[in-house]
């Protein structure tokens, strides 16, 4: 049996290894090593826990069985999941962290002796506060992530669900959570503990339903952050350094990602959270506009333009993920490169449904990561490029964000696609994007609309090259 001090030191080591795991992600070269540090840190934490309890009776076997069962399921999912389903997977994983936190909190509440927290009905006050915060945040993470998962998976409409009195209701529930925690701590009543869990599940659900599909990058990052805070709350209860460090790391990581995503849309965090973006007056505005002429072309025209170009910039968006066009796209680019045409990719921070979504898909299609650029790195290049190939992106290319202060997306950083000599825009129809506004780019002199499925169009262009 390990002494408490020795196991404390090992938990610290695993916390440090987790820091190194995140540090490794600063570049793709060091990232694989980083992941290894993460695995090592986790292994140390688990082994030390077993050794410090020092109980290898029948219960140990049961623990191993449950561990292996979960491990097998996890490994199976990790190998089977297609890369396009990454956002759903991450949302699903968040929900599991949340639920695990809830279960640990319940176990600690029912059997506080096992954790040295006092006895049932007489739990140490500090521990009870930490425990109830961990449980509440865990429950919110769980139900919120379930909704995010259903929306991403398409099992639930991606449209914001809003109703009258939504915000006052949410505010009321949040206040009642705080009141319940206070009462729970003063009375130690187990009924209040269950009430707390129930209303926390409810608020998690209510907080996410008004948020629309394209705001999912913010939601996923936010839930990532919550799962960290829940882990930290439990870490305080268990007096475990590894858990506290990890919770803080994950919490701040998710918070930073939410900030980056909000900035990418030029919206405040609260604006996103309150939800219901671009559903009311904007759609009416779009209808009032008279029809403007657009130029449309076919794969042959597109191939001709590209063949005569010396540099092409590709702007992928969520539509590319939906059409699973990344492989077809890379084949097209290979053909272009054979003709000595310079190709680069431009990624907007909020392209896709989660941070870095496009980068993963392109990496899956064997696109080298040094051909893929972020908005700030590449925005000046558009003026020098001959052709911009927009595939599945829309709002993030809309020049209105720079010109029209009335527009809801005004001020949002956009890719300066219109500065290219010519723009090829692959899209199924002229319908507006998520923000519900018309894209001015469609009607520009130098824009050629390619109305088709992204994958099919890309394949046809390759044939014509």
């Amino acid at each position, binding site marked *: 049996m390990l002494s408490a001090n020795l196991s404390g030191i090992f938990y610290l080591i695993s916390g440090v290894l987790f*820091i190194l795991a995140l540090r490794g992600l600063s570049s793709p070269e060091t990232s694989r090593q980083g992941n290894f540090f993460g695995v090592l840190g986790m292994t140390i934490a688990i082994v030390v826990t077993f050794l410090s309890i020092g109980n290898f009776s029948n219960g140990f076997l*049961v623990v191993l069985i*449950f561990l292996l069962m979960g491990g097998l399921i996890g490994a199976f999912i990790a190998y089977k999941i297609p890369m396009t389903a990454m956002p759903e997977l991450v949302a699903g994983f968040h929900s599991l962290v949340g639920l695990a936190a809830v279960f640990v909190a319940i176990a600690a509440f029912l059997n506080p002796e096992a954790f040295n927290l006092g006895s049932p009905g007489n739990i140490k006050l500090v521990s009870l506060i930490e425990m109830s915060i961990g449980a509440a945040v865990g429950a919110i993470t769980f139900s919120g992530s379930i909704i995010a998962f259903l929306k991403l998976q398409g099992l639930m409409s991606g449209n914001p669900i809003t109703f009258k009195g939504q915000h006052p209701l949410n505010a009321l529930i949040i206040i009642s959570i705080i009141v319940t925690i206070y009462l729970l701590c003063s009375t130690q009543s187990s009924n209040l503990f269950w009430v707390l869990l129930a209303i926390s599940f409810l608020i998690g659900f209510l907080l996410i339903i008004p948020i629309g599909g394209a705001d999912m990058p913010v939601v996923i*990052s936010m839930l990532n952050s919550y799962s960290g805070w829940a882990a930290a709350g439990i870490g305080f209860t*268990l007096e475990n350094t*590894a858990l506290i460090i990890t919770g803080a790391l*994950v*919490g701040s990581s998710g918070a930073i990602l939410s900030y980056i995503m909000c900035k990418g849309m030029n919206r405040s965090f609260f604006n996103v959270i309150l939800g219901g973006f671009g559903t009311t007056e904007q759609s009416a505005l779009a209808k009032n506009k008279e029809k403007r002429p657009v130029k449309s072309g076919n794969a042959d025209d597109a191939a001709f333009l590209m063949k005569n170009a010396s540099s092409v910039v590709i702007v992928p968006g969520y539509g590319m993920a939906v059409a699973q066009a990344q492989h077809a796209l890379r084949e097209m680019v290979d053909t272009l490169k054979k003709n000595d045409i310079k190709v680069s990719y431009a990624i907007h921070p909020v392209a896709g449904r989660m941070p870095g979504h496009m980068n993963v898909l392109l990496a899956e299609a064997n696109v080298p990561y040094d051909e893929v650029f972020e908005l700030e790195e590449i925005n000046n290049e558009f003026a020098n490029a001959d052709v911009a190939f927009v595939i599945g992106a829309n709002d993030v290319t809309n020049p209105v964000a720079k010109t029209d202060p009335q527009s809801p997306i005004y001020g949002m950083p956009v890719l300066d696609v219109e500065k290219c000599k010519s723009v090829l825009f692959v899209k199924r129809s002229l319908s507006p994007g998520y923000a519900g506004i018309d894209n001015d780019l469609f009607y520009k002199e130098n824009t050629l609309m390619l109305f088709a499925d992204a994958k099919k169009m890309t394949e046809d262009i390759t044939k014509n090259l």
Partner: protein
Amino acid sequence: MEIDPIIFRLSIFILSIFIGYYVVWSVTPSLHTPLMSVTNAISSVIIVGAIIAGLAGNSDTIFNNSSIFGFLAISLAAINIFGGFLVTQRMLAMYKKKKRK
């Protein structure tokens, strides 16, 4: 007067938030998806608490109403640990540099 140990834990917590802040800002945007999946995996270190809960109830019986929650939490966290690290590894293996000609 002695300092309550909770102050030490709070110090660790606050300092870790700062470490997290600086480390995560240095993560390259193209790796933000692996960042999410790996943070997912490491936050499942909550399994430590689940193991303690699972092993606590076996003086008379292995399964009591507290340990059963521990066992369930072990499985959930294990899904995340294995799934999170493996899927991260799978993603990171795809990030390749341009082939030198």
